[in-house]
């Protein structure tokens, strides 16, 4: 028995010693914190489903990966506008429908597929124009190939946002014609050939994507040799991982942003990468309870959007005055209505409405539910009873679409948030006549609005575009169907030693990351 006891004691002593020694030296096998070596550790919010620009899955492409690996004619600069990419000698808009470009010589595809050529550019854009993402290419007609390295993009109509919202975006990626055709015309997460500052050295689905600098890359050397992109889908978990030193950069949610504004971790900085999201409360103008515009206007005057900014977003979001987001042409500093409960009550009285009961549908997440509760209290103050209906993404995104059932007929109020691109034409495309019953759930239309939308897309003069988009928002105000709420910022926390670079839509451009 003594022998057994001794052995057990020895075992316990051994375990204790190993633990203490491990803690003391802080070096268990394989541990490497983010700050170690030349490897930058960044958070990726979602798994890679497809890197093929024609077949991106869902609502947003994995630009952060593609921009590090693939050629493009233009990139987003640090001011949010477009700049020529490292793959081109020059790119110039000759007139409203012709863009001349010349590729740099010697930009080599991996896997022995030769140089990046004009033929690759034409193939990529032609393919994109008939793909799932063809909406980005409505103005594209064709590429005139002059020679191996130069050509002209020909548009079928003047389209002011083409550089910013098409060529610089995720769908402006150039793919290798020979390689893609050899791969059967389509690919998913394994690119048949790439040509960028990085290569994928390892992809463990659900865990990590490792980018390593491309030895064949003859553009400017990236600041970081190695980048490990860790898939952390939960934003709170990403913040904790950042605080534990396992990430160098992570995206933070509104509540974490508010916390960091008060008490930021040591040696850290916050960067607002953009606020290209617009959230509003919509009203169904066809619903019998909301048919009278005075009722809708009463609701507009009853909701205190600044209370939503403070109460639901801890003051971290910008108050919205329209669908044009901060920093874009046409952004307003006031809406066509103001918070005025007295006026709201008067409008209801004038409409002869009392004891009104309405439903308010929203996605079931923390910020939206808080927003709904604030609106509920605001409307209760003018005598409108609101029932909040929280919904999962599935039924929520279907409810206003005529093809997806009859819920659109019952829709009364809802809280909606869309993302915008870096051009003001983008938000308006969802409210044109053709979108009624698809994404225009408010179900109104206006000839003037249609006319202005077409003019805005073709107009290149900034002043004229500003006037157009301001007027379009006034028309939206006049429908009484909108209560603009917030522009939620996309915020990242990162090491102060890192100078990150983002697209206007807050995707990371890792190839342009540098030391601060």
């Amino acid at each position: 028995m003594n022998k057994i006891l001794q052995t057990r004691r020895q075992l316990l002593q051994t375990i204790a010693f190993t633990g203490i020694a491990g803690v003391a030296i802080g070096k268990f096998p394989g541990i490497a914190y983010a700050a170690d070596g030349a490897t930058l550790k960044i958070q990726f919010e979602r798994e890679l489903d497809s890197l093929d620009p024609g077949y991106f899955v869902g609502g947003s492409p994995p630009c952060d990966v593609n921009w590090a690996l693939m050629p493009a004619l233009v990139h987003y600069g640090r001011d949010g506008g477009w700049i020529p990419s490292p793959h081109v000698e020059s790119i110039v808009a000759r007139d409203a429908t012709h863009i001349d470009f010349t590729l740099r010589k010697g930009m080599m595809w991996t896997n022995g597929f030769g140089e990046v050529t004009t033929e690759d550019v034409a193939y990529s854009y032609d393919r994109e124009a008939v793909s799932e993402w063809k909406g980005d290419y409505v103005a594209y007609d064709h590429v005139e190939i002059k020679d191996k390295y130069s050509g002209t993009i020909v548009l079928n109509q003047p389209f002011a946002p083409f550089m910013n919202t098409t060529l610089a975006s995720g769908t402006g990626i150039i793919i290798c014609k020979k390689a893609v055709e050899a791969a059967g015309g389509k690919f998913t997460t394994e690119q048949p050939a790439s040509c960028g500052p990085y290569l994928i050295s390892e992809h463990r689905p659900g865990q990590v994507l490792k980018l390593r600098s491309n030895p064949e890359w003859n553009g400017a050397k990236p600041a970081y040799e190695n980048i490990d992109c860790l898939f952390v889908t939960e934003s709170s978990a990403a913040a904790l991982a950042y605080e534990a030193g396992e990430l160098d950069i992570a995206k933070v949610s509104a509540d974490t942003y508010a916390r960091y504004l008060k008490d930021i971790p040591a040696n850290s900085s916050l960067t607002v990468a953009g606020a290209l999201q617009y959230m509003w409360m919509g009203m169904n103008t066809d619903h019998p309870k909301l048919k009278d515009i005075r009722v809708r206007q009463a609701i507009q005057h009853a909701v205190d959007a600044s209370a939503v900014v403070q109460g639901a977003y801890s003051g971290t979001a910008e108050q919205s005055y329209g669908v044009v987001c901060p920093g874009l042409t046409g952004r307003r500093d006031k809406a066509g209505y103001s918070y005025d409960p007295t006026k709201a009550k008067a409008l209801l009285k004038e409409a002869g409405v009392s004891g009104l009961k309405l439903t308010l549908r929203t996605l079931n997440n923390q910020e939206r539910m808080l927003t709904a509760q604030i609106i509920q209290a605001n409307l209760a103050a003018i005598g409108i009873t609101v029932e909040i209906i929280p919904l999962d993404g599935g039924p929520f995104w279907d409810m206003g679409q005529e093809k997806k059932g009859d819920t659109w007929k019952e829709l009364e109020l809802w809280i909606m948030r869309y993302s915008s691109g870096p051009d003001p034409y983008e938000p308006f495309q969802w409210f044109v006549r053709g979108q009624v019953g698809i994404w225009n759930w408010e179900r109104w239309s206006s000839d003037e609005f249609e006319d202005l939308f077409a003019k805005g897309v073709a107009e290149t003069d900034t002043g004229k575009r500003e006037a157009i988009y301001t007027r379009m928002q006034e028309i939206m105000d006049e429908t009484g169907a909108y209560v603009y709420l917030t522009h939620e910022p996309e915020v990242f926390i990162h090491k102060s030693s890192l100078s990150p670079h983002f697209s206007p839509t807050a995707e990371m451009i890792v190839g342009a990351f540098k030391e601060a």
Partner: protein
Amino acid sequence: MWSYLLKRILLSVLIVFLAILALFITLHSIPGDPISIALGPRATPEIQAEYAARMHLDKPLYHQFVIFIGNVIKGDLGNDLFSNRSVLLILSEQLPYTIVLAITAIGWSALIGIPLGCLSAVKPNSLLDKITGIVSVGTIAIPSFLVSIWAILIFSVGLKWLPVIGAGEPGDFGDQIYHLILPAFAVGLGWVGYLARMVRASMLEVMSENYIRSANAFGLKSRTIIFRYALKVAILPTITLIGVGFGALLSGTVFAEIIFSRPGIGKIIYNMVLARNFPVIQGAVLITIGMYVIVTLIADLIVSWLDPRVRDTL
């Protein structure tokens, strides 16, 4: 024993079939159009139609079920709709992480919970018993995700001893163990309490049996009575509980897999339900059901081996 084994296997097959049927009906009853959720708002009608045909969504539900069962029998779980990778391959990459986490969590909780339950039962109403009772109820009552967050705040953010995210580098055993400590702690903590309470209750019942009194009367050492005679019987319901618990953890580790950003079956089911990626969901749930049935079958067989009377109950 063979008759019991045969009956038990047939029952398992029936359970798997019914579970698949329930899964199929549930999955197709989720509100929202799977095509628009999966493809996003930009998908053209042609692409939507192609997707529907590829997923057999254009066929009646019973037809889809028959196709699915037929493919399962052939060992074909289909391909991921987006990455086009084999579902079997995807799951074979993820499953080991979940199994390791579940075994580690249940393992450490059993190593602590069972002796704790025994000690409590041997000295009922003692200070140790009371402390064990409080600790057990406490660990059962605290939600595991809270344990995870506290553990991260203390051991990762505060002390920087243990990592938060990932499962460690493949091939680096030490690193993998190191990444396993916090998730296994968070998942297993509640089970310490469950097991301690279960073993205590069973032991108290067994300790009052006549044969234990006889053993005491014969002057056998209490250690021999407890571990050789009492625990052998008292452990039976605990084995069943561990079996059921392990099965539940195969999909129940989802919170740990999300918070600790670990790969695993629970996390993949969660992500794929959001994306309405039906082939992966069906495959993952099928594998989980299969594992669950196998583990409970093994637990039942162990129980029937230890206590032959159980064989007559089926």
